[in-house]
């Protein structure tokens, strides 16, 4: 195994892997954030009193969690552009060719999947908030938005953090699937390098090590965030 091939610069793949890692991190961060936004909406729908909204949100989480992510990625990759073009044609009479950037497609796919898992976490966290705290807030005359901001939100964040840490690790790993549509993240660069240098083991091992590093850093970061969110709790 020749490791000089992984050096920095024109002869080595070190810099390519470095930028690929940055892309993996940005896809994961954007998808995770997009997923949280979806999850807050879906949680609100799941806890709503309207049956249609509840059914929609349940359909979203059941379907996304029940079918492979790869199917969704192929769907958006092969069908996203034509769907977008038919919408553009119908709504704005715009007939030029449209193509979504691959990065955006990736974030869309991984975010959809990440959001379904986050929904279950956030829903559980909302249900874990003691009703008494909400009643107390009502009793001292807080209005709905103050109550959400001061009472519900801080507690939900604290209850949801452990679960969201798991979802983050899941999202980070799922970004690898975007390599099948050609985004130059870690697995894709490993594939390209493996093909052109004829050293597949070295390159995929390098990819594996990079993911290990990201997971290790996430573990550390997650511990300190959890500590921070529990700062106001006794005996924690």
């Amino acid at each position: 195994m020749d490791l000089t091939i992984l050096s920095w610069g024109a002869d080595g793949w070190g810099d390519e892997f470095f930028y690929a890692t940055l892309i993996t991190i940005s896809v994961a961060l954007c998808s995770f954030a997009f997923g949280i936004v979806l999850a807050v909406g879906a949680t609100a729908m799941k806890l709503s009193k309207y049956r249609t909204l509840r059914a929609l949100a349940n359909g979203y989480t059941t379907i996304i969690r029940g079918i492979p992510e790869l199917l969704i990625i192929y769907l958006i990759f092969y069908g996203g552009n034509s769907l977008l073009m038919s919408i553009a044609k119908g709504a704005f009479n715009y007939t030029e060719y449209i193509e979504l950037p691959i990065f955006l497609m990736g974030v869309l796919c991984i975010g959809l999947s990440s959001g379904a898992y986050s929904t279950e976490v956030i829903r559980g966290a909302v249900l874990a908030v003691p009703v008494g705290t909400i009643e107390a807030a009502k009793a001292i005359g807080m209005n709905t938005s103050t109550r959400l901001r001061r009472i519900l939100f801080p507690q939900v964040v604290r209850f949801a953090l452990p679960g969201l840490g798991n979802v983050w690790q899941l999202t980070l790993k799922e970004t690898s699937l975007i390599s099948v549509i050609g985004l130059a993240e870690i697995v894709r660069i490993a594939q390209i390098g493996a093909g052109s240098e004829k050293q597949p083991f070295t390159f995929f091992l390098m990819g594996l090590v990079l993911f290990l590093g990201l997971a290790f850093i996430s573990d550390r970061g997650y511990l300190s965030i959890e500590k921070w969110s529990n700062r106001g709790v006794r005996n924690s």
Partner: protein
Amino acid sequence: MDIDIIKESIPAIAQALPVTIALVSISLFFGFFLAVIVALSRLSRHNFLNKPAYIFVYIFRSTPLLIQMFLIYYGSGQFRDELDSIGLWQFFKEPWFCAILSLTLNTGAYTSEIIRGGIQSVSLGLLEAGKACGMSTIQLFRRITFPLAMRQALPGYGNEVILMVKSTSLASTITIMDMTGVYKEISSDYFSPFEPLIIAGAFYLALNYIITIAVSSAEKRLSLETR
């Protein structure tokens, strides 16, 4: 929506269903034995057993399955001569072998954590009672620890089985024509990804639904004695 493509997709994807089921069941079978061994090693007091088990679990749980599969399938090519000389190349050149090996190692790592949690949940009093009756270590494990740990681990294991069904779709990236592989072929042949997605999605959902039902009925059956 093109009805003809839907009609075409149903038999094609149905034919690939046994492939998906075979991938899931073979790797779950071997993965389970691996998981029990890894879980017991992790709980062992000896560092030469629990350290390697910890590292194995950490690596396989914190890296994507896709790269594990590529590392085994494509990566083994780098050591073709070495593998050939010990007679293993005939296995590593087969996508089926590599897919099942990577799925087994992956599910083994996840399942070992579920089983470890189950074993740790067995209360000490029961083991002491067993010892007081004069059971040997093996008898204690077989009659007390293992059955109780399994019952405790069942809900978590059910989730793992569903994740495995989803994970087998990655085998399509190393040329295996499972349901996802066939889906991809149909959607690129007809340039229409929506119709076959409905069919493939329905098959996956149905499979996972059956697993959910099976696991929850097993849970009910096992919990009868506690009532």
